[in-house]
Protein backbone atom coordinates (compact mmCIF):
# COMPACT_ATOMS: atom_id res chain seq x y z
CA UNK A 1 0.00 0.00 0.00
CA UNK A 2 1.46 3.29 -1.05
CA UNK A 3 1.50 5.98 1.59
CA UNK A 4 -1.15 8.74 1.23
CA UNK A 5 -0.15 11.70 -0.80
CA UNK A 6 -1.84 15.00 -1.52
CA UNK A 7 -3.62 15.32 -4.88
CA UNK A 8 -2.23 18.39 -6.62
CA UNK A 9 -5.55 19.23 -8.47
CA UNK A 10 -8.12 19.06 -5.61
CA UNK A 11 -5.84 19.45 -2.64
CA UNK A 12 -7.38 16.38 -0.94
CA UNK A 13 -5.36 13.43 0.29
CA UNK A 14 -5.53 10.10 -1.52
CA UNK A 15 -6.37 6.86 0.26
CA UNK A 16 -3.19 5.34 -0.91
CA UNK A 17 -5.11 2.91 -3.16
CA UNK A 18 -4.06 2.82 -6.75
CA UNK A 19 -5.28 0.76 -9.69
CA UNK A 20 -3.79 1.03 -13.15
CA UNK A 21 -2.51 4.45 -12.34
CA UNK A 22 -5.87 5.71 -11.01
CA UNK A 23 -5.73 6.90 -7.41
CA UNK A 24 -8.68 7.11 -4.98
CA UNK A 25 -9.32 10.41 -3.17
CA UNK A 26 -10.72 10.73 0.35
CA UNK A 27 -13.08 13.57 -0.63
CA UNK A 28 -15.37 14.22 2.33
CA UNK A 29 -19.15 14.04 1.88
CA UNK A 30 -20.50 17.52 1.02
CA UNK A 31 -21.80 19.55 3.96
CA UNK A 32 -25.24 20.00 2.41
CA UNK A 33 -25.61 16.23 2.15
CA UNK A 34 -24.61 15.65 5.77
CA UNK A 35 -26.99 18.41 6.87
CA UNK A 36 -29.93 16.88 4.99
CA UNK A 37 -29.14 13.46 6.41
CA UNK A 38 -29.07 14.75 9.98
CA UNK A 39 -32.26 16.71 9.32
CA UNK A 40 -34.10 13.55 8.23
CA UNK A 41 -33.00 11.83 11.43
CA UNK A 42 -34.35 14.78 13.39
CA UNK A 43 -37.62 14.76 11.47
CA UNK A 44 -38.01 11.03 12.12
CA UNK A 45 -37.63 11.56 15.86
CA UNK A 46 -40.16 14.42 15.87
CA UNK A 47 -42.54 12.29 13.76
CA UNK A 48 -42.23 9.37 16.18
CA UNK A 49 -43.13 11.71 19.01
CA UNK A 50 -46.15 13.24 17.27
CA UNK A 51 -47.71 10.35 15.34
CA UNK A 52 -48.82 6.81 16.22
CA UNK A 53 -45.82 4.55 15.97
CA UNK A 54 -44.74 1.46 17.86
CA UNK A 55 -46.65 -1.24 19.68
CA UNK A 56 -46.46 -0.53 23.39
CA UNK A 57 -47.10 -2.72 26.40
CA UNK A 58 -50.81 -1.84 26.32
CA UNK A 59 -51.84 -0.99 22.79
CA UNK A 60 -49.79 1.09 20.41
CA UNK A 61 -48.19 4.45 21.22
CA UNK A 62 -50.74 6.99 19.98
CA UNK A 63 -48.34 9.91 19.55
CA UNK A 64 -48.67 13.40 20.97
CA UNK A 65 -51.15 14.55 18.32
CA UNK A 66 -53.28 11.40 18.82
CA UNK A 67 -54.02 11.38 15.11
CA UNK A 68 -55.60 8.26 13.69
CA UNK A 69 -57.09 7.43 10.32
CA UNK A 70 -60.36 6.40 11.95
CA UNK A 71 -60.67 9.82 13.63
CA UNK A 72 -59.86 11.45 10.32
CA UNK A 73 -62.58 9.37 8.69
CA UNK A 74 -65.07 10.31 11.40
CA UNK A 75 -64.35 13.99 10.73
CA UNK A 76 -64.77 13.57 6.98
CA UNK A 77 -68.01 11.69 7.51
CA UNK A 78 -69.29 14.35 9.87
CA UNK A 79 -68.66 17.04 7.24
CA UNK A 80 -70.51 15.02 4.60
CA UNK A 81 -73.34 14.18 6.98
CA UNK A 82 -73.73 17.83 7.90
CA UNK A 83 -73.96 18.78 4.23
CA UNK A 84 -76.77 16.27 3.65
CA UNK A 85 -78.39 16.49 7.07
CA UNK A 86 -81.31 18.68 6.02
CA UNK A 87 -82.19 16.50 3.06
CA UNK A 88 -81.87 13.22 4.90
CA UNK A 89 -83.95 14.53 7.77
CA UNK A 90 -86.71 15.51 5.37
CA UNK A 91 -86.54 12.13 3.66
CA UNK A 92 -86.89 10.37 6.99
CA UNK A 93 -89.75 12.59 8.14
CA UNK A 94 -91.78 12.65 4.93
CA UNK A 95 -94.14 9.69 4.48
CA UNK A 96 -92.79 7.43 1.74
CA UNK A 97 -95.70 8.02 -0.60
CA UNK A 98 -95.25 11.81 -0.41
CA UNK A 99 -91.52 12.03 -1.17
CA UNK A 100 -92.17 12.16 -4.90
CA UNK A 101 -94.75 14.91 -4.55
CA UNK A 102 -92.07 17.36 -3.40
CA UNK A 103 -90.00 18.22 -6.54
CA UNK A 104 -86.81 19.12 -4.66
CA UNK A 105 -86.96 16.09 -2.41
CA UNK A 106 -87.73 13.87 -5.37
CA UNK A 107 -84.72 15.18 -7.25
CA UNK A 108 -82.42 14.56 -4.28
CA UNK A 109 -83.78 11.05 -3.67
CA UNK A 110 -83.71 10.00 -7.32
CA UNK A 111 -80.23 11.38 -7.99
CA UNK A 112 -78.76 9.77 -4.89
CA UNK A 113 -80.85 6.67 -5.47
CA UNK A 114 -79.39 6.19 -8.94
CA UNK A 115 -75.83 6.13 -7.59
CA UNK A 116 -76.85 3.79 -4.78
CA UNK A 117 -78.69 1.55 -7.24
CA UNK A 118 -75.65 1.21 -9.47
CA UNK A 119 -73.52 0.06 -6.55
CA UNK A 120 -75.98 -2.13 -4.67
CA UNK A 121 -78.68 -3.32 -7.09
CA UNK A 122 -77.28 -3.15 -10.63
CA UNK A 123 -75.13 -6.30 -10.34
CA UNK A 124 -78.36 -8.32 -10.34
CA UNK A 125 -81.07 -6.05 -11.77
CA UNK A 126 -78.80 -4.39 -14.33
CA UNK A 127 -77.79 -0.76 -14.83
CA UNK A 128 -81.08 0.92 -15.66
CA UNK A 129 -82.95 -1.90 -13.88
CA UNK A 130 -83.71 -3.89 -17.02
CA UNK A 131 -83.22 -7.15 -15.15
CA UNK A 132 -81.53 -10.27 -16.48
CA UNK A 133 -83.52 -12.76 -18.50
CA UNK A 134 -83.67 -16.08 -16.72
CA UNK A 135 -82.23 -14.73 -13.47
CA UNK A 136 -83.32 -11.43 -11.98
CA UNK A 137 -86.54 -9.46 -12.57
CA UNK A 138 -86.73 -6.13 -14.37
CA UNK A 139 -87.81 -3.21 -12.20
CA UNK A 140 -88.82 -0.83 -15.00
CA UNK A 141 -92.12 -2.50 -15.85
CA UNK A 142 -95.32 -2.86 -13.86
CA UNK A 143 -95.00 -6.65 -13.49
CA UNK A 144 -94.23 -6.82 -9.78
CA UNK A 145 -93.71 -10.06 -7.87
CA UNK A 146 -94.14 -8.66 -4.37
CA UNK A 147 -95.92 -5.38 -5.03
CA UNK A 148 -95.12 -2.11 -6.75
CA UNK A 149 -96.28 0.45 -4.20
CA UNK A 150 -93.39 2.41 -2.73
CA UNK A 151 -94.06 0.84 0.68
CA UNK A 152 -93.79 -2.63 -0.89
CA UNK A 153 -90.54 -1.72 -2.62
CA UNK A 154 -89.19 -0.28 0.61
CA UNK A 155 -90.03 -3.50 2.46
CA UNK A 156 -88.39 -5.64 -0.21
CA UNK A 157 -85.18 -3.60 -0.23
CA UNK A 158 -85.01 -3.49 3.56
CA UNK A 159 -85.42 -7.18 4.24
CA UNK A 160 -85.01 -8.94 0.92
CA UNK A 161 -86.56 -12.16 -0.29
CA UNK A 162 -86.07 -15.71 0.98
CA UNK A 163 -82.98 -14.94 3.05
CA UNK A 164 -82.02 -15.42 6.70
CA UNK A 165 -83.60 -12.11 7.76
CA UNK A 166 -86.69 -12.94 9.84
CA UNK A 167 -88.64 -10.17 8.13
CA UNK A 168 -87.68 -11.19 4.61
CA UNK A 169 -90.42 -12.15 2.17
CA UNK A 170 -90.86 -15.91 2.28
CA UNK A 171 -92.64 -18.37 0.05
CA UNK A 172 -91.86 -21.70 -1.49
CA UNK A 173 -93.21 -23.11 -4.70
CA UNK A 174 -93.48 -26.86 -4.23
CA UNK A 175 -92.11 -29.24 -6.82
CA UNK A 176 -95.00 -30.87 -8.70
CA UNK A 177 -92.82 -33.65 -10.07
CA UNK A 178 -94.31 -36.12 -7.56
CA UNK A 179 -97.75 -34.50 -7.26
CA UNK A 180 -98.80 -34.43 -10.92
CA UNK A 181 -98.47 -37.07 -13.58
CA UNK A 182 -96.14 -36.23 -16.48
CA UNK A 183 -99.05 -35.78 -18.89
CA UNK A 184 -100.77 -33.42 -16.46
CA UNK A 185 -97.60 -31.33 -16.26
CA UNK A 186 -97.46 -31.30 -20.01
CA UNK A 187 -101.10 -30.16 -20.19
CA UNK A 188 -100.73 -27.45 -17.60
CA UNK A 189 -97.66 -26.09 -19.37
CA UNK A 190 -99.69 -25.75 -22.56
CA UNK A 191 -102.44 -24.02 -20.60
CA UNK A 192 -100.01 -21.60 -18.91
CA UNK A 193 -98.62 -20.64 -22.31
CA UNK A 194 -102.15 -20.10 -23.60
CA UNK A 195 -102.96 -17.75 -20.71
CA UNK A 196 -101.00 -14.93 -22.32
CA UNK A 197 -102.03 -15.69 -25.87
CA UNK A 198 -105.02 -13.51 -26.88
CA UNK A 199 -105.84 -15.77 -29.85
CA UNK A 200 -106.62 -18.63 -27.45
CA UNK A 201 -108.83 -16.62 -25.16
CA UNK A 202 -112.05 -18.38 -26.21
CA UNK A 203 -110.64 -21.89 -26.42
CA UNK A 204 -108.32 -22.10 -23.45
CA UNK A 205 -110.98 -22.93 -20.84
CA UNK A 206 -111.66 -26.17 -22.72
CA UNK A 207 -108.00 -27.21 -22.60
CA UNK A 208 -107.23 -30.25 -20.44
CA UNK A 209 -104.68 -28.21 -18.49
CA UNK A 210 -107.34 -25.78 -17.28
CA UNK A 211 -108.60 -28.11 -14.57
CA UNK A 212 -105.06 -29.04 -13.50
CA UNK A 213 -104.31 -25.34 -13.19
CA UNK A 214 -107.43 -24.61 -11.15
CA UNK A 215 -106.76 -27.51 -8.79
CA UNK A 216 -103.03 -26.97 -8.27
CA UNK A 217 -101.84 -23.54 -9.35
CA UNK A 218 -104.72 -21.11 -8.93
CA UNK A 219 -104.46 -20.92 -5.14
CA UNK A 220 -101.22 -18.94 -5.49
CA UNK A 221 -101.15 -17.73 -9.09
CA UNK A 222 -104.85 -16.77 -9.20
CA UNK A 223 -107.84 -18.16 -11.08
CA UNK A 224 -106.81 -16.46 -14.30
CA UNK A 225 -103.07 -16.59 -13.68
CA UNK A 226 -103.12 -12.98 -12.56
CA UNK A 227 -100.51 -13.75 -9.90
CA UNK A 228 -100.56 -13.54 -6.12
CA UNK A 229 -98.38 -10.93 -4.56
CA UNK A 230 -98.82 -12.14 -1.00
CA UNK A 231 -96.91 -15.27 -2.08
CA UNK A 232 -94.65 -13.56 -4.60
CA UNK A 233 -96.40 -15.74 -7.18
CA UNK A 234 -95.69 -14.30 -10.65
CA UNK A 235 -98.39 -13.19 -13.02
CA UNK A 236 -98.78 -15.92 -15.64
CA UNK A 237 -101.28 -14.23 -17.97
CA UNK A 238 -98.82 -11.71 -19.33
CA UNK A 239 -95.97 -12.47 -21.70
CA UNK A 240 -93.27 -11.61 -19.17
CA UNK A 241 -91.28 -14.68 -18.16
CA UNK A 242 -88.54 -14.52 -15.54
CA UNK A 243 -87.28 -18.05 -16.10
CA UNK A 244 -88.32 -18.41 -19.74
CA UNK A 245 -91.65 -18.84 -21.55
CA UNK A 246 -90.94 -21.90 -23.64
CA UNK A 247 -92.93 -25.02 -22.84
CA UNK A 248 -89.75 -26.74 -21.74
CA UNK A 249 -88.89 -23.85 -19.38
CA UNK A 250 -92.38 -23.96 -17.84
CA UNK A 251 -92.22 -27.73 -17.33
CA UNK A 252 -88.82 -27.28 -15.72
CA UNK A 253 -90.22 -24.63 -13.39
CA UNK A 254 -93.19 -26.85 -12.42
CA UNK A 255 -91.01 -29.87 -11.67
CA UNK A 256 -87.89 -28.16 -10.28
CA UNK A 257 -88.95 -24.66 -9.22
CA UNK A 258 -86.38 -21.92 -9.15
CA UNK A 259 -87.06 -19.23 -6.59
CA UNK A 260 -85.25 -15.92 -6.46
CA UNK A 261 -83.27 -14.86 -3.41
CA UNK A 262 -82.57 -11.23 -2.61
CA UNK A 263 -80.24 -10.17 0.23
CA UNK A 264 -81.37 -8.05 3.13
CA UNK A 265 -80.12 -4.47 2.99
CA UNK A 266 -81.32 -3.24 6.38
CA UNK A 267 -77.98 -4.19 7.94
CA UNK A 268 -75.92 -2.72 5.11
CA UNK A 269 -77.67 0.59 4.36
CA UNK A 270 -79.33 3.12 6.66
CA UNK A 271 -83.01 4.00 6.55
CA UNK A 272 -82.65 7.27 4.62
CA UNK A 273 -80.53 5.48 2.02
CA UNK A 274 -83.11 2.72 1.61
CA UNK A 275 -85.84 5.34 1.22
CA UNK A 276 -83.85 7.04 -1.53
CA UNK A 277 -83.42 3.70 -3.27
CA UNK A 278 -87.11 2.89 -2.96
CA UNK A 279 -88.00 6.28 -4.44
CA UNK A 280 -85.61 5.75 -7.34
CA UNK A 281 -86.98 2.29 -8.14
CA UNK A 282 -90.56 3.54 -7.79
CA UNK A 283 -89.93 6.29 -10.34
CA UNK A 284 -88.42 3.96 -12.94
CA UNK A 285 -91.73 3.47 -14.70
CA UNK A 286 -93.73 0.73 -13.03
CA UNK A 287 -94.35 2.32 -9.65
CA UNK A 288 -97.89 1.91 -8.35
CA UNK A 289 -99.84 4.37 -6.23
Amino acid at each position, binding site marked *: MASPERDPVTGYKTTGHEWDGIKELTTPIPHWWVSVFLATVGIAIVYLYLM*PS*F*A*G*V*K*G*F*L*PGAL*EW*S*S*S*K*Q*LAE*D*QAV*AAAAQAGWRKRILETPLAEIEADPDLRRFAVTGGRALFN*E*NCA*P*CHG*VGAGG*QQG*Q*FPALIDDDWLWGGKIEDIHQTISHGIR*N*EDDDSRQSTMPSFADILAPEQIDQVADYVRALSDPSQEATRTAMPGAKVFTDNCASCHGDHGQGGREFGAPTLNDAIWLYGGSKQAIISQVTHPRM*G*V*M*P*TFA*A*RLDEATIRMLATYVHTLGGGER
Partner: protein
Amino acid sequence: MPRFNHAPIERSAFLLFLLTFIVISIGGLVEIVPLFKIESTVTPVKGVRPYTPLEQLGRNIYTREGCYVCHSQMVRPFRDEVDRYGHYSIAAESMYDHPFLWGSKRTGPDLARVGGKYSNAWHVAHLEDPRSVVPVSIMPSYAFLMDKDLVTEDIRDHLQALRGVGVPYTDEMIRNAAADIEAQATGESTDALLARYPKAKIGDFDGQPNRLTEMDALIAYLQVLGTMVDFTDIRLETPGK
Protein backbone atom coordinates in the same frame (compact mmCIF):
# COMPACT_ATOMS: atom_id res chain seq x y z
CA MET B 1 -12.80 20.56 17.03
CA PRO B 2 -10.77 17.51 16.02
CA ARG B 3 -11.88 16.06 12.70
CA PHE B 4 -13.48 12.64 12.87
CA ASN B 5 -11.16 10.20 11.23
CA HIS B 6 -12.58 6.98 9.82
CA ALA B 7 -9.25 5.67 8.67
CA PRO B 8 -8.58 3.60 11.84
CA ILE B 9 -11.98 1.87 11.48
CA GLU B 10 -11.45 1.05 7.87
CA ARG B 11 -7.98 -0.25 8.52
CA SER B 12 -9.01 -2.70 11.27
CA ALA B 13 -11.23 -5.61 10.17
CA PHE B 14 -12.21 -6.39 13.77
CA LEU B 15 -13.21 -2.83 14.62
CA LEU B 16 -15.16 -2.49 11.36
CA PHE B 17 -17.05 -5.74 12.06
CA LEU B 18 -17.78 -4.79 15.67
CA LEU B 19 -19.13 -1.31 14.89
CA THR B 20 -21.15 -2.58 11.92
CA PHE B 21 -22.69 -5.24 14.16
CA ILE B 22 -23.63 -2.64 16.77
CA VAL B 23 -25.28 -0.34 14.22
CA ILE B 24 -27.27 -3.18 12.60
CA SER B 25 -28.30 -4.45 16.03
CA ILE B 26 -29.78 -1.08 16.95
CA GLY B 27 -31.76 -1.01 13.71
CA GLY B 28 -32.89 -4.58 14.21
CA LEU B 29 -34.00 -4.05 17.79
CA VAL B 30 -36.01 -0.95 16.89
CA GLU B 31 -37.83 -2.91 14.19
CA ILE B 32 -38.22 -6.25 15.92
CA VAL B 33 -38.86 -5.60 19.61
CA PRO B 34 -42.20 -3.77 19.14
CA LEU B 35 -43.45 -6.80 17.18
CA PHE B 36 -43.31 -8.85 20.39
CA LYS B 37 -46.23 -6.73 21.60
CA ILE B 38 -48.08 -6.58 18.27
CA GLU B 39 -50.99 -8.50 19.80
CA SER B 40 -51.71 -5.50 21.99
CA THR B 41 -52.52 -3.36 18.93
CA VAL B 42 -55.35 -5.62 17.71
CA THR B 43 -58.65 -4.30 19.03
CA PRO B 44 -60.56 -7.35 20.23
CA VAL B 45 -64.05 -7.67 18.77
CA LYS B 46 -66.89 -10.09 19.25
CA GLY B 47 -68.01 -12.43 16.54
CA VAL B 48 -64.79 -13.30 14.71
CA ARG B 49 -64.51 -17.08 14.56
CA PRO B 50 -62.31 -19.50 12.63
CA TYR B 51 -63.60 -20.40 9.18
CA THR B 52 -65.83 -23.45 8.87
CA PRO B 53 -64.13 -26.33 7.05
CA LEU B 54 -66.16 -25.58 3.91
CA GLU B 55 -65.29 -21.89 4.04
CA GLN B 56 -61.64 -22.74 4.61
CA LEU B 57 -61.61 -24.96 1.52
CA GLY B 58 -63.27 -22.14 -0.40
CA ARG B 59 -60.55 -19.85 0.86
CA ASN B 60 -57.95 -22.27 -0.44
CA ILE B 61 -59.62 -22.14 -3.86
CA TYR B 62 -59.71 -18.34 -3.69
CA THR B 63 -55.97 -18.42 -3.03
CA ARG B 64 -55.29 -21.09 -5.65
CA GLU B 65 -57.10 -19.16 -8.37
CA GLY B 66 -55.29 -15.97 -7.46
CA CYS B 67 -58.44 -13.96 -6.77
CA TYR B 68 -56.36 -11.73 -4.48
CA VAL B 69 -54.36 -10.53 -7.48
CA CYS B 70 -57.33 -8.50 -8.73
CA HIS B 71 -59.49 -8.19 -5.61
CA SER B 72 -58.35 -6.63 -2.35
CA GLN B 73 -59.89 -7.53 0.99
CA MET B 74 -59.20 -4.28 2.75
CA VAL B 75 -61.71 -1.47 3.08
CA ARG B 76 -59.55 1.51 3.95
CA PRO B 77 -60.76 4.19 6.37
CA PHE B 78 -61.63 6.74 3.69
CA ARG B 79 -65.09 8.17 3.23
CA ASP B 80 -65.51 7.08 -0.38
CA GLU B 81 -64.58 3.49 0.48
CA VAL B 82 -66.74 3.34 3.58
CA ASP B 83 -69.68 4.75 1.61
CA ARG B 84 -69.25 2.11 -1.05
CA TYR B 85 -68.19 -1.02 0.83
CA GLY B 86 -69.25 -0.50 4.44
CA HIS B 87 -67.28 -0.28 7.69
CA TYR B 88 -63.51 -0.16 7.15
CA SER B 89 -61.63 -3.41 7.75
CA ILE B 90 -60.25 -3.95 11.23
CA ALA B 91 -57.26 -6.04 12.23
CA ALA B 92 -59.29 -8.63 14.15
CA GLU B 93 -61.20 -9.57 11.00
CA SER B 94 -58.15 -11.18 9.45
CA MET B 95 -56.64 -12.62 12.63
CA TYR B 96 -57.42 -16.18 11.48
CA ASP B 97 -56.23 -15.61 7.91
CA HIS B 98 -53.05 -17.52 7.11
CA PRO B 99 -51.88 -15.97 4.92
CA PHE B 100 -53.99 -12.82 4.88
CA LEU B 101 -55.48 -11.96 1.49
CA TRP B 102 -55.58 -8.18 1.78
CA GLY B 103 -54.18 -7.82 -1.72
CA SER B 104 -52.62 -4.67 -3.04
CA LYS B 105 -54.45 -3.93 -6.26
CA ARG B 106 -58.06 -3.49 -7.28
CA THR B 107 -58.70 -4.55 -10.83
CA GLY B 108 -62.07 -5.71 -9.51
CA PRO B 109 -63.87 -4.32 -6.46
CA ASP B 110 -62.85 -4.92 -2.87
CA LEU B 111 -64.35 -8.10 -1.44
CA ALA B 112 -63.81 -7.58 2.29
CA ARG B 113 -67.56 -7.05 2.83
CA VAL B 114 -69.04 -8.95 -0.10
CA GLY B 115 -70.67 -11.54 2.18
CA GLY B 116 -74.47 -11.31 2.02
CA LYS B 117 -74.42 -8.58 -0.61
CA TYR B 118 -75.49 -10.90 -3.43
CA SER B 119 -77.52 -14.10 -3.57
CA ASN B 120 -75.85 -17.46 -4.15
CA ALA B 121 -77.50 -17.60 -7.57
CA TRP B 122 -75.83 -14.31 -8.50
CA HIS B 123 -72.42 -15.64 -7.51
CA VAL B 124 -72.96 -18.76 -9.62
CA ALA B 125 -74.07 -16.72 -12.64
CA HIS B 126 -71.21 -14.28 -12.15
CA LEU B 127 -68.47 -16.86 -11.68
CA GLU B 128 -69.72 -18.88 -14.66
CA ASP B 129 -69.93 -15.91 -16.98
CA PRO B 130 -69.09 -12.55 -15.40
CA ARG B 131 -70.32 -10.57 -18.39
CA SER B 132 -73.79 -12.11 -18.17
CA VAL B 133 -74.46 -10.00 -15.09
CA VAL B 134 -71.84 -7.23 -15.29
CA PRO B 135 -71.47 -6.33 -18.97
CA VAL B 136 -68.29 -4.25 -18.52
CA SER B 137 -66.48 -6.86 -16.42
CA ILE B 138 -63.06 -8.09 -17.55
CA MET B 139 -63.01 -10.99 -15.08
CA PRO B 140 -62.29 -14.42 -16.53
CA SER B 141 -64.86 -17.19 -16.31
CA TYR B 142 -64.60 -19.73 -13.52
CA ALA B 143 -67.31 -22.03 -14.85
CA PHE B 144 -65.09 -25.08 -14.37
CA LEU B 145 -65.54 -24.80 -10.59
CA MET B 146 -69.11 -26.04 -11.11
CA ASP B 147 -67.77 -29.27 -12.50
CA LYS B 148 -64.94 -30.01 -10.09
CA ASP B 149 -65.84 -32.13 -7.10
CA LEU B 150 -64.52 -30.66 -3.88
CA VAL B 151 -61.61 -32.60 -2.41
CA THR B 152 -62.42 -32.97 1.27
CA GLU B 153 -60.25 -35.91 2.34
CA ASP B 154 -57.42 -33.71 3.58
CA ILE B 155 -59.55 -31.19 5.49
CA ARG B 156 -58.33 -32.41 8.87
CA ASP B 157 -54.74 -31.80 7.83
CA HIS B 158 -55.64 -28.27 6.74
CA LEU B 159 -57.26 -27.48 10.08
CA GLN B 160 -54.41 -29.14 11.98
CA ALA B 161 -51.88 -27.04 10.10
CA LEU B 162 -53.84 -23.87 10.79
CA ARG B 163 -53.98 -24.78 14.47
CA GLY B 164 -50.21 -25.04 14.35
CA VAL B 165 -49.98 -21.36 13.38
CA GLY B 166 -52.46 -20.18 15.99
CA VAL B 167 -56.03 -20.63 14.72
CA PRO B 168 -58.02 -21.99 17.68
CA TYR B 169 -59.50 -25.08 16.05
CA THR B 170 -60.44 -27.52 18.79
CA ASP B 171 -60.03 -31.30 18.66
CA GLU B 172 -63.79 -31.50 18.28
CA MET B 173 -63.75 -29.16 15.27
CA ILE B 174 -61.01 -31.15 13.59
CA ARG B 175 -62.66 -34.50 14.35
CA ASN B 176 -65.99 -33.35 12.88
CA ALA B 177 -64.60 -31.41 9.93
CA ALA B 178 -65.97 -33.74 7.26
CA ALA B 179 -69.40 -33.84 8.91
CA ASP B 180 -69.41 -30.04 9.16
CA ILE B 181 -68.74 -29.72 5.43
CA GLU B 182 -71.63 -32.06 4.73
CA ALA B 183 -73.97 -30.19 7.10
CA GLN B 184 -73.14 -26.74 5.75
CA ALA B 185 -73.51 -27.71 2.10
CA THR B 186 -76.73 -29.70 2.51
CA GLY B 187 -78.46 -27.81 5.32
CA GLU B 188 -79.19 -31.06 7.13
CA SER B 189 -78.43 -31.60 10.85
CA THR B 190 -76.70 -28.29 11.21
CA ASP B 191 -77.08 -27.83 14.98
CA ALA B 192 -73.60 -29.06 15.82
CA LEU B 193 -72.10 -27.01 13.00
CA LEU B 194 -73.81 -23.82 14.17
CA ALA B 195 -72.74 -24.47 17.75
CA ARG B 196 -69.13 -24.69 16.62
CA TYR B 197 -69.30 -21.93 14.03
CA PRO B 198 -72.02 -19.41 14.95
CA LYS B 199 -73.90 -17.69 12.12
CA ALA B 200 -72.43 -19.93 9.41
CA LYS B 201 -74.30 -19.59 6.10
CA ILE B 202 -76.08 -22.84 5.33
CA GLY B 203 -77.34 -24.29 2.12
CA ASP B 204 -76.69 -25.55 -1.35
CA PHE B 205 -74.50 -22.74 -2.65
CA ASP B 206 -73.98 -23.70 -6.30
CA GLY B 207 -77.53 -24.71 -7.23
CA GLN B 208 -76.58 -28.37 -7.76
CA PRO B 209 -78.14 -30.06 -4.73
CA ASN B 210 -76.68 -33.46 -5.50
CA ARG B 211 -73.06 -32.44 -5.83
CA LEU B 212 -70.44 -30.86 -3.59
CA THR B 213 -68.26 -28.85 -5.93
CA GLU B 214 -65.50 -26.28 -5.62
CA MET B 215 -68.15 -23.69 -6.50
CA ASP B 216 -69.99 -24.59 -3.26
CA ALA B 217 -66.87 -23.99 -1.21
CA LEU B 218 -65.88 -20.75 -2.93
CA ILE B 219 -69.34 -19.21 -2.57
CA ALA B 220 -69.55 -20.33 1.06
CA TYR B 221 -66.30 -18.43 1.63
CA LEU B 222 -67.43 -15.33 -0.30
CA GLN B 223 -70.70 -15.24 1.63
CA VAL B 224 -68.96 -15.09 5.01
CA LEU B 225 -66.49 -12.34 4.09
CA GLY B 226 -66.95 -9.32 6.32
CA THR B 227 -70.05 -10.66 8.05
CA MET B 228 -68.57 -12.01 11.28
CA VAL B 229 -68.16 -8.80 13.27
CA ASP B 230 -71.19 -7.31 14.95
CA PHE B 231 -70.46 -3.64 14.36
CA THR B 232 -73.11 -2.53 16.78
CA ASP B 233 -71.00 -4.06 19.54
CA ILE B 234 -67.44 -3.02 18.84
CA ARG B 235 -65.64 -0.07 20.30
CA LEU B 236 -62.86 1.20 18.11
CA GLU B 237 -61.33 3.90 20.28
CA THR B 238 -57.59 4.21 20.08
CA PRO B 239 -56.37 1.44 22.38
CA GLY B 240 -53.22 3.44 23.23
CA LYS B 241 -55.07 5.53 25.82
